């Protein structure tokens, strides 16, 4: 089987990729500005709601219920979609899903398709697979289009081109569209609009993702901000929707919770600009053929893990990315996957499902465990707990390493007060390394600390030694 494309082939481990990003001053500036702005706006939008905590709990509960009954709900979804004239396809992995979509495109004799921005299709590498099969996929979301035309990779769940500024976008458009534009947002948007309009009017097949699928009615829901999605979902003759099996809600009424949680968490808007809902096919109105491709791609395996499965609650709002101090400095591409940031650090390794993969195994460590992600997550995914849980799996997979030996030794020392005290006394000898009360250089691995930070010299007397001397009557 081909390598699961959840992670990009050849991506280095996180620390290595981050090193490159950290030196990119333009990237640092773009990210700091963008995440800083949206952080503030999200906080304000959420503060307007006095029942936000209850909504989060409700979101968590609905999603947990879905995960607990996923098998029956999926069957219900299949039945309701079929009853309304749609066709449901099941795909175990990326390869299978890509083949299904390619076959559907070929059945329509399509050589070009329009796409609504979709994480699921990015996850399975659909565009590349279609291209190899002679079908060109045109991204219609502005940010996604920027990434596509720039032969670039996405760096954010919601704003894939967040790492680009206006000047860079102008350069890409001029080069790829062959037009003259200024770097004014209105001009850039107009250039994209002109470019895309022709595609909408001439393309017969559209491919979308889904934010939600309602099991009892078979309705599919897409939320977007630009209206390009709306065009893809209504103009073509055939609509192919690709979605992960966890994107379900049981009933129409459950949407109420998520249509409040998602826009405020992701774009800091009270209400989403375009919410499109379609149910099967309606003769004479909209696409006349509708295909729903349900992909597993590591999800069932993730569901087996009682701690890790909460990652499947994710509604891809990207709030956790925008508050993450690690993401803000390193950008999304350092994570080597379409799912970057805190959610990527827990979802990607689980979907890859192989803790022996050095790149995937480096992701759970790409966090300072500051907890900002958990604080904002609208479905209350305890990302820090999942991170430490996955770290334990990585440690287990790695077996005996220099680190594991050192950790075992430290645990042995901490296991007894007398051993600990002896170690303290021995450690105090490090005073000889100090000048003016600070140590500026330690041998490896301490050198990783002292590359940028001093270490205080250990004092001659530990607290416990002081206590014994002053407080214990002998």
């Amino acid at each position, binding site marked *: 089987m081909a390598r699961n494309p959840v992670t990009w082939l050849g991506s280095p481990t996180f*620390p290595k990729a981050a090193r490159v990003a950290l030196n990119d001053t333009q990237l640092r500036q773009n990210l700091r500005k963008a995440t800083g702005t949206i952080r503030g706006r999200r906080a304000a939008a959420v503060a307007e709601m006095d029942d936000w905590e209850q909504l989060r709990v409700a979101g968590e509960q609905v999603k947990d219920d879905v995960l607990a009954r996923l098998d029956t709900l999926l069957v219900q979804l299949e039945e309701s979609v079929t009853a309304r004239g749609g066709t449901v396809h099941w795909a175990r992995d990326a390869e299978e899903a890509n083949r299904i979509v390619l076959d559907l495109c070929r059945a329509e004799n399509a050589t070009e398709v329009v796409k609504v921005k979709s994480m699921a299709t990015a996850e399975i590498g659909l565009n590349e697979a279609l291209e190899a099969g002679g079908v060109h996929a045109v991204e219609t979301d502005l940010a996604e289009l920027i990434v596509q035309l720039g032969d670039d990779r996405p760096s954010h769940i919601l704003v894939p081109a967040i790492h680009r500024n206006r000047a860079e976008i102008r350069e890409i458009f001029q080069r790829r569209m062959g037009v003259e534009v200024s770097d004014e947002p209105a001009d850039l948007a107009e250039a994209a609009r002109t470019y895309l309009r022709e595609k909408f009017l001439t393309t017969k097949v559209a491919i979308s993702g889904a934010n939600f699928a309602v099991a009892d009615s078979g309705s599919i829901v897409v939320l977007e901000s630009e209206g390009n999605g709306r065009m893809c979902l209504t103009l073509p003759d055939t609509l192919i929707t690709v979605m992960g099996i966890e994107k379900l809600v049981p009933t129409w009424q459950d949407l109420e919770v998520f249509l409040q949680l998602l826009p405020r968490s992701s774009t800091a808007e009270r209400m989403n600009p375009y919410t499109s809902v379609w149910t099967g096919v309606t003769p004479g109105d909209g696409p006349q053929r509708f295909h729903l491709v349900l992909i597993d791609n590591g999800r069932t395996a993730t569901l087996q893990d009682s701690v890790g499965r909460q990652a499947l609650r994710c509604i891809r709002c990207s709030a956790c990315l925008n508050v993450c101090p690690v993401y803000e400095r390193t950008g999304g591409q350092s994570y080597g996957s379409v799912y970057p940031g805190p959610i990527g650090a827990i979802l990607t390794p689980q979907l890859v499902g192989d803790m022996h993969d050095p790149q995937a195994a480096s992701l759970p460590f790409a966090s300072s465990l500051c907890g900002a992600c958990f604080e904002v997550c609208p479905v209350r995914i305890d990302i820090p707990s999942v991170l*430490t849980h996955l770290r334990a799996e990585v*440690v287990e997979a790695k077996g005996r390493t220099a680190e594991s030996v050192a950790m075992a030794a430290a645990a042995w020392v901490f296991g007894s007060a007398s051993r600990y005290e002896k170690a303290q006394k021995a450690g105090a000898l490090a005073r000889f390394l100090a000048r003016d009360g600070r140590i500026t250089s330690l041998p490896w691995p301490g050198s990783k600390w002292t590359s*940028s930070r001093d270490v*205080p010299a250990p004092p001659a*007397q530990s607290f416990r030694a002081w206590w014994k001397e002053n407080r214990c009557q002998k």
Partner: protein
Amino acid sequence: MALFATCLTDTFFPSTARAVVRLLERLGCSVDFPLEQTCCGQMHFNTGYRDHARPLARKYTDVFMGYDHVVAPSGSCAGMVREVHPTLGTSPPRTFELAEFLVDVLGVTDVGAWFPHRVTYHPTCHSLRMLGVGDKPLALLRAVKGLDLVELPDATHCCGFGGTFAVKNAETSTAMLADKMRCVLDTGAEVLSAGDNSCLMHIGGGLSRLRTGVRPVHLAEILASTEEDPWRATP
């Protein structure tokens, strides 16, 4: 009540633990320091060595079982005990971070301290988010006589320590540290205070490397300082 000094404070920052003792005794508590204590196991747990953390959690419970309250001068270690130890199968004794203990248990915000310096305060991530300590440390600092408290910009942003994160992702950690230091320097404060020596060791290590002259001082040492017995920099 018992003092849990934490391994880091016991070994590297004994002046903080002595300050806690001084402060709590001044407020009328009788403080014990059970010598069998070592470490709460956080480093092991957070790095993925859960099997090593488990006996340390058990040891913690054994050592502190008999006390009404345990106080730690660390939001991070108190958070580890309160939030994580139960997931490791132990039921830890009532453990508080220092500011929480003072405000919630003893019911004081003015501890009679005197500290005539310009101070800024960094609310450490685990105090802030794991324990929900909120504004309690600031309320305590505001009541300190002579203290000029200046607000830290982007105070709630992580300093980049994160335990072994600081060495496993040293460059990213340093980038976070650089931004934190920039904020600290912007305040013009001479003292950076926090409730965790781990974060102070990180930020302080950077401030010292650059010879900024800003000194990290644990909240306990500020609160223990009085006109009769003022805080002095330990060499």
